[in-house]
């Protein structure tokens, strides 16, 4: 959105160039990766390298096509997605609830926050052995690890956001004699929403990070399994294909999350012209 506005102002004097400017900018970002990929493809095609350890794009594409044809790709994608979804859901729920309560009540904050900050200092991957002992090697321990990773940024984000709500805005609620619930619903929630969306997105990013760690600890399906499988069988194409799948999924879920929340944050967008709703 900001890009469009920028593009529009940049070409204000020359409306004919507007469309070119609008398309040219994202294309600029593609120049480097596409150039490198093409270059490598040519190097391998010319026989300068055999491309065994660093596969050229055509072989990665073949691997993708093969995985997709056999239904393997979908199976692994779904396994990983389900883990992220479950862990993200649990982590978000716990982080939001605890963050909100700790932000709202000074007593709870003093009771709970120091312990949670202490736990946050532990690298989440350090929990893996304990989770395996407690929860077994199957889905539960994986989901728990992802949930722990997602929990902290969301807990911190929500608590910080509530603590930094402008006193002046809260006073408006007091002047209109809002009840406790009314204050939460009509003042605090909308006020923390922009920060909340940011913490959800960083939580989701961490969820994708931890799902790999979780799948490394022993899985029979999932993109993390594909990575390990590719390493053990010496198939770099499979590894790169899995990495690309991660990139696409991570970016796509983040974009979906941002798009779903965008309508609630319309009031924030400073670039939108007056007449437009």
């Amino acid at each position, binding site marked *: 959105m900001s890009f469009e506005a920028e593009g529009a102002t940049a070409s204000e004097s020359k409306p004919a160039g507007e469309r070119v400017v609008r398309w040219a900018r994202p294309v600029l970002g593609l120049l480097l990766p596409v150039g490198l990929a093409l270059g490598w493809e040519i190097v391998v095609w010319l026989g300068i390298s055999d491309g065994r350890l660093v596969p050229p794009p055509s072989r990665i594409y073949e691997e993708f096509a093969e995985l997709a044809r056999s239904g393997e790709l979908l199976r692994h994608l779904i396994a990983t997605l389900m883990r992220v979804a479950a862990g993200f859901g649990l982590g978000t729920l716990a982080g939001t609830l605890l963050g909100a309560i700790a932000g709202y009540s000074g007593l709870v904050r003093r009771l709970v926050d120091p312990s949670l900050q202490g736990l946050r200092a532990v690298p989440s991957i350090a929990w893996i052995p304990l989770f395996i002992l407690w929860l077994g090697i199957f889905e539960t321990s994986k989901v728990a690890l992802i949930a722990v990773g997602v929990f902290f940024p969301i807990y911190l984000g929500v608590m910080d956001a509530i603590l930094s709500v402008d006193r*002046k805005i809260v006073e*408006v609620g*007091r002047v209109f*004699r809002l009840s406790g619930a*009314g204050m939460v619903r*009509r003042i605090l929630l909308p006020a923390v929403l922009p920060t909340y969306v940011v913490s959800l997105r960083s939580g989701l990013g961490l969820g994708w990070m931890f799902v790999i760690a979780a799948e490394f600890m022993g899985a029979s399906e999932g993109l993390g399994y594909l990575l390990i499988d590719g390493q053990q069988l010496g198939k770099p194409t499979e590894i790169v294909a899995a990495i690309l799948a991660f990139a696409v999924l991570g970016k796509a879920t983040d974009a979906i999350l941002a798009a779903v929340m965008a309508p609630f944050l319309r*009031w*924030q967008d*400073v670039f939108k012209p007056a007449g437009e709703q």
Partner: protein
Amino acid sequence: MLTLKHIGKTYPNGVRALDGVSLDVELGEIVAVVGGSGCGKSTLLRAISGLDRPTQGAVVFKDDIISEPHEKIGIIFQEPRLLPWLTVAENVGFGLADRPKDERKARVARALERVGLTEKANVWPRELSGGQAQRVAIARALVARPEVLLLDEPFSALDAFTRIDLQDHLLDLWADQKPTLVHVTHDVDEAIVLADRVVVMRPRPGRVADEIVIDLPRPRDRQSAAFDFAKRRVLAALDRSLDRAVRVDDGETKSEAGAALWW
């Protein structure tokens, strides 16, 4: 009637902001409170609004002791304090959430029309100018039909033209329902344009130094001699409130000096 009985306010850090402030405000009266900085004007207003409690004395409104915000007492702050996630119309209707939708819509529409912002009903607050935003804040306070409206330097952040415009506008709106207004300002002209009575406060701790009745017919001509005379009286009272030696020169230099220095 609104009565302040020996209001005192001592902050937890020991600072005495107010000491023994007593004031009776009649129904429909416009009282302006002026004074040097740190004389507790805003503290006084916050005590009347119920946002803060005085440490001594009590604010009594219609036999109720005010200890928290009162349904019939509205306040307009120095900043508009509009909620950025609500449209202008939703902001104006903020205090009417418990009313039926039709009534709410009608009252919001009337209030917006009254402040001349009907065409801005569906825009976000960020798209308003400072003066427009403050008009929306006025509409939001008035739509709840307060019997007392407190104003805490509401026009001080605006440019001179907008300020004069809004002062006239406020008087116009006041004439609709004739609520009691308690208007804190550091602008002596503003106090005299608006008020039936100007309360001059003195600092450290904040006390009432003087009360000057402004007995001029409305609308008041800012250029008239009577206006100027009232202004000189208020400025002289301000000088006295700051224990500043009032020179016995002619009135002109005295008022000039006061105008430049008192705040």
